[in-house]
């Protein structure tokens, strides 16, 4: 029997997974900085809906594969639980997203749909990475290891929450996101349409 994951690190898996990823991000409207940042103003809930749905689908699928015994529990890469580092990084990426209009992945989508501001964002991304590397030896290394949760990296290891429970709770929260988001979208100006996104951001 075939064991999962296949652990393919080659060119084709990268190109194919990336191509599908980029295609779906563009289809969701995530090349538009106007649409992306509207999530933070609560007028367009696409970012939260799409990300959260994807997390529930993928986490549910992986939990199911584990429950069926097709996927060993420790077979996948899980980010280390340096929670302080995750919080500092989350704050900086969140601020960068709000100000710059993109996150690193969506800036590639923005650029490929013709947005020159996304190219400038990408230049900033390289510059920020260089600045980080420059400060690495003078204390930054400690930031990346801040706030380690020693009990484990996953909800199961750290808090004993069974995978299927965690997925179930997220699915319930997802229903809440669609309900609240839909309500606020109807009250406000509503989601940014493709026609508006292609025209570019305009003053409200």
């Amino acid at each position, binding site marked *: 029997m075939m064991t999962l994951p*296949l652990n393919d690190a080659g060119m084709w898996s*990268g*190109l194919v*997974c*990336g*191509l599908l*990823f*980029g*295609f779906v991000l563009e*289809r*969701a*409207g995530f090349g538009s*900085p*106007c649409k992306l940042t509207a999530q933070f*103003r609560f007028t367009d809930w696409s970012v939260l809906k799409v990300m*959260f*749905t*994807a997390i529930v*689908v*993928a986490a549910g699928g992986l939990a199911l*594969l584990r429950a069926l015994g097709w*996927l060993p529990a420790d077979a*996948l890469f899980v*980010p280390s639980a340096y929670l302080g580092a*995750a919080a*500092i*990084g989350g704050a*900086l990426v*969140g*601020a*960068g997203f*709000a*100000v*710059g*209009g993109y*996150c*690193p*992945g969506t800036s*590639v989508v*923005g650029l490929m749909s013709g947005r*020159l*501001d*996304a190219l*400038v*964002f*990408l230049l*900033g991304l*390289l*510059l*920020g*990475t260089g600045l*980080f*590397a420059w400060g*690495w030896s003078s204390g930054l290394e400690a930031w*990346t290891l801040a706030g380690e949760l020693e009990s484990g990296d996953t*909800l199961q290891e750290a808090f004993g929450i069974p995978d299927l429970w965690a*997925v179930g709770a997220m699915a319930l929260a997802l229903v809440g996101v669609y309900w609240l988001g839909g309500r606020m979208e109807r009250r406000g100006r509503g989601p940014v349409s493709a026609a508006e996104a*292609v025209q*570019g*951001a305009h003053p409200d």
Partner: protein
Amino acid sequence: MKPNPAMSSASCSLQPRPFWPSWLAGIALGLVLLLTFVWTGHGLGATGASTRLTAALAHGVAPAATEGNGYLGPLVKQGKPLASWISWQVLGVAIGALAAAWQAGRLRVQLDGEHSVGRGRRLLSALGGGVLAGYGARVAAGCTSGLGLSGAATLGVAAFVFLAVFFAVGIVASRLLRGV
């Protein structure tokens, strides 16, 4: 040449096609992420490639300093910093996004945000936002895709902390200043 009436309502229309509804895009993204995990053993990302590109560019400008750098040095010492799965994946993202935008009539060269905040301010906000995101993604060892989305799919605690702070700070920052 006379316009072909049969074409005018579809492929030659100026009106771009609508985006996918969020539930559909979300399910599709979840399935792509699931496929990536099963195929490669890890999720999707972005800043792995930009970090490698930074190393390659820095190595071209200042080889000795880059090799001596504690963070970028290990990436350039083997010779080819860009030779990695994540570089192919980001190239794939670019191709997929281009195909999707072109096919849906959403490909338009513009400086998005120029009309809302002005050209100079938009250039500054895009550059500054990129710097913040690039720096932050290295502190957290991942970005919205690599740590937030992919990490949450494996039920990693760090991913949920990242996403919670990401949204909280994003909401506050977008209230303080408008970049787009």
